[in-house]
């Protein structure tokens, strides 16, 4: 998929868009009505789009619906897409807007469901070098982070997921959300502060227990 790849270093550019030039060719073909070219764009970007919108939707079923709807709108809107932005930032913007539109329309639910236990187990089991106690601690930490992210206001959550979880660059994340980079950084800063406070609480609780 087209979301950026992970950076292996602790400090360094977080994201590099994996697909650029080929996307332009495929987009040009798709704009001329080539469905096979658009299908290839779907295969490249569906997983990345899903990974973003699943954090903004009520459940995985809705996230899949949003993903499908975003591609449908992209296909219909391709004639209006002139390549000013990268295809995947344009697509992600459609998806994020659709997720937020649905969120605005649904009744707000106050409860926060802690998510992704299967993913946490998967990540933990992937790292064979980590001792079982460490893995349990990491899983606990990730549950805390999941809950803290889920409790963020949707604007901050979208910024954080795009930038810090999915690894888009600041410019790309700002383009997806239709913000200036300074505004995106401000939202990110607030979101990170909330998460850091949550992690500090988590550390205190673990220290006390």
């Amino acid at each position, binding site marked *: 998929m087209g979301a950026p790849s992970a950076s292996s270093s602790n400090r360094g550019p977080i994201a590099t868009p994996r697909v650029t030039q080929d996307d332009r060719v495929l987009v040009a073909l798709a704009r001329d009505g080539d469905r096979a070219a658009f299908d290839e764009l779907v295969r490249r970007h569906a997983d990345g789009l*899903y990974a973003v919108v699943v954090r903004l939707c009520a459940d995985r079923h809705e996230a899949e619906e949003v993903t499908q709807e975003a591609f*449908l709108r992209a296909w219909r809107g391709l004639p209006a897409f002139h390549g000013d932005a990268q295809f995947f930032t344009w697509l992600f913007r459609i998806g994020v807007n659709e997720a937020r539109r649905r969120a605005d329309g649904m009744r707000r639910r106050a409860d926060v469901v802690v998510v992704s*236990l299967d993913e946490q187990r998967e990540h933990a089991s992937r790292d064979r070098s980590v001792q079982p106690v460490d893995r349990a601690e990491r899983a606990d930490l990730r549950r805390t982070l*999941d809950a803290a992210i889920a409790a963020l206001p949707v604007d901050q959550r979208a910024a954080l997921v795009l930038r810090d979880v999915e690894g888009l660059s*600041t410019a790309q994340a700002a383009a997806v959300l239709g913000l200036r980079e300074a505004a995106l950084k401000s939202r990110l800063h607030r979101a990170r502060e909330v998460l850091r406070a949550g992690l500090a609480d988590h550390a205190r609780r673990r220290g006390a227990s």
Partner: protein
Amino acid sequence: MLPAYREQALPADQDARVRAHLRDCADCRASLAQLIELASDLRALRSRAPDGLAERVIAHLDADSASARLSVVTTAGDEPAPRTPAATRAWTIAREQLPRTLALSFVVGVAITLLKDLGTLLSDGITVQTCAVCGANFVAAFALLNVWLLLARPRPWPRRPRRRNRLCAPRV
């Protein structure tokens, strides 16, 4: 500045200054370590898409194309002409700003009437004629405001901050 330092997004001189500061400041070193750890933990949270998602999206597109073709066959010629984007945009602006334009027009209409006909109002009181003049001023101000809105397309007035959105996170 530490997040930008971590991402190597600072200009060289600032980067060097932060590095030098970090040598002497244990608090900032701890904050940087927290940031690095948080970044690592966040990247590990990346959600995995369900198997076969892309193929289901493609099937959805196929189904939509098929229904669109059917729709063209059954309703050809019945569809109303689509509104142009410019007209849609103009209508959206006018509709969104309607409460404000109405209120502002009312204030302007009353103010102009008071300025122009204050003497008449004081001597004769509120009459049908002054009400008519006030109404005409209101209508003129409302029309001018909307023309200005559509031509100038100013940045939207700041909205009230939204309520915190406490959406549920995805269920497993």
